[in-house]
């Protein structure tokens, strides 16, 4: 019995760890897409953020400066995206795709030029990373059955970014549905003309959304390289930006459901290697590739409207043009 509890806690613990970058990237995408800017470029921003964070942290020895650099890199990418899609009224999807390639190319190229380690940044340790925080009483409660285990392993012992990610969910929900900014944000994604008529600048509002997007996804990138791992390696985002996008669609652009979907995708990721080679009743052996593909397949099925219907913000992808 105890062993099962330990196993479950371990799986849930790694679920949380794996879900953090997805949660941050999903929430990031939420702000952008709710404002009417499609963000295929989450993957690239995550990667750029991870690289900048690890590089800065390796050079300065401070994880906090690393985090700042990660957010900075994401801001630059968001800025280009904004320039292309808000100012030049270009195709937002194409811009996002370009930014993903830009991140993939630049991180490897600059990594090799700066550090000469085949795309890896130097190994980080100590203050160069965000280390686990032990919450108060975690040690004392360890002997309490079940609860002590859950509190000590699952809730305590994560790094600060993890807690930030989980706090960001209710904050986003509040901002989106309870604040004036959130109301305007939702409006500009559905009907920018109405916002413009009300005398609010569409351009300004959309840039504000892109800035929040960059901050969140930049933190997510930093999590990958200086919290979860001890350094950057090539293409370390490995499609998480796309998974986050899938989660966002799955959650129908709402923060609460986005959290649940990210946790579900994180869970799939966590059990992936545990079920390898194991046989299940009725199903038999499940290939690990099937689990890997599941988030993508589920998203396709959802988008096709076979289970529920995901309707994007109405003005997403359409550049706003004032009357000529």
């Amino acid at each position, binding site marked *: 019995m105890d062993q099962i509890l330990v196993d479950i806690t371990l799986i849930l613990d790694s679920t949380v760890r794996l879900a953090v970058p997805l949660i941050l990237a999903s929430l990031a995408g939420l702000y952008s897409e709710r404002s009417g800017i499609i963000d295929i470029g989450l993957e690239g921003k995550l990667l750029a953020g991870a690289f900048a964070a690890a590089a800065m942290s390796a050079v300065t020895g401070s994880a906090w400066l690393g985090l700042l650099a990660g957010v900075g890199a994401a801001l630059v990418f968001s800025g280009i995206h904004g320039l292309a899609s808000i100012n030049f009224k270009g195709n*937002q999807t194409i*811009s996002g795709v*370009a930014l993903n390639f830009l991140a993939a190319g630049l991180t*490897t*190229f600059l990594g*090799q030029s700066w550090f000469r380690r085949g795309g890896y940044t130097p190994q980080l340790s100590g203050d160069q990373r965000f280390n686990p925080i032990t919450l108060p009483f975690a040690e004392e409660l360890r002997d309490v059955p079940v609860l002590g285990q859950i509190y000590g392993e699952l809730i305590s012992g994560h790094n600060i970014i993890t807690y930030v990610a989980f706090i960001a969910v209710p904050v986003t929900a509040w901002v989106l549905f309870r604040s004036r900014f959130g109301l305007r944000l939702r409006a500009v994604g559905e009907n920018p003309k109405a916002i413009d008529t009300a005398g609010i600048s569409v351009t300004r509002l959309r840039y504000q959304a892109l800035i929040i997007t960059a901050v969140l996804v930049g933190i997510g990138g930093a999590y990958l390289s200086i919290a979860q791992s001890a350094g950057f390696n090539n293409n370390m985002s490995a499609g998480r930006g796309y998974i986050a996008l899938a989660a966002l669609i799955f959650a129908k652009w709402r923060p609460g459901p986005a959290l649940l979907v990210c946790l579900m995708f994180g869970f799939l990721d966590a059990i992936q290697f545990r079920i390898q080679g194991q046989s299940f009743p009725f199903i038999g052996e499940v290939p690990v*590739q099937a689990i890997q593909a599941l988030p993508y*397949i589920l998203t396709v099925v959802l988008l096709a409207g*076979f289970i529920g219907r995901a309707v994007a913000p109405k003005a997403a992808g359409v550049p706003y043009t004032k009357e000529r």
Partner: protein
Amino acid sequence: MTPLPRWADVVLLPLLNVTLAFLVGGLIVLSVGQNPLQAVGIMLYGAFGYGSGFGYTLYYTTDFIFAGLAVSLAYHAGLFNIGPEGQAYVGGLGVILIGLALNGMHWALVFPLMIICGALFGAAWAFIPGYLQAKRGSHVVITTIMFNFIAVSMMGFIISRILKPEGVNSDESAPLEAITRVPQLRGFIELFRNSPVNLTFFLAIAALFFVYWLIWRTKFGYSVRALGNNPVAANYAGISNQKMIMIIMALAGAFAAMVAVNNVGGVQGRLILNFVNGAGFVGIAVAFMGKGHPIGVGLSALLFGMLYQGGQELAFQMPGITREMIVTIQALVILFTGAMGDMMRGPLSRMFFQPDATAGDK
């Protein structure tokens, strides 16, 4: 805004955008303390300076023409197909299955069957996003991205669990016999020694002509362009948008699958894990740079073939520069020709028409 003269729109604007992309790329190279001009020189030598280098350039060009056409075809119908990577990968399954079934037979028989079978598999993989877009309204961009990932998982399973023969360590299928493989040009042309360029290259050239004919000289092509320019008008004119979307996506997938004929049938002679290796994504840059026109696609594919082969040479000669610089260039090209393609339009049209000439119209 005053429209530009046609030549400026078709030639000058794209050229300016590409130049801008390369200038920024040069600045990035400069920023890490390397000499971009020296890099260009080495790349040009690597790509055209000697026989097998040139052969490699043409081999990459072959891949990029097909991938570029796969993106262009869909784009003419107003669809952004990000899926050539996955479509080529799944197409590889068709190519290897027919190849292994007829292993040992002469290539003259197998080559056409590889084309057909690969095309069918690639078309099927692209048809599903097309169907979902046409009938269920799910956006083709998201679906094709998802299908790239699904293809990676599915093909990984098929290659490592089903096609991999006993006693082989790496994840790959059984090999095709030499006589069954698409012949490489070095067998006939001494110049191309050691390079993998094969008969598929001529197929790529033929594909360029075919696409020109199809898009600009047939009723079908007219419907495609009508759909791309104005879906409502196309529908009103009696074109079935749904049918066209499905057909054009399937066709795009078939073209993408020719990347597999080049690689699986002509170069590796077996199905290797992740053999597409980004060629499908290069197609996006090629299509935007070439503005979807076969001449443009052919030239851009050659440029990227040069960059990829030259980049290989560069990595040897200048250790400070990796091949990933090419991915950066690719990104800048997509950004400047695709996403910000109209950035220079305003200044350009002001240059062509003096402000006072048009001021009276408004």
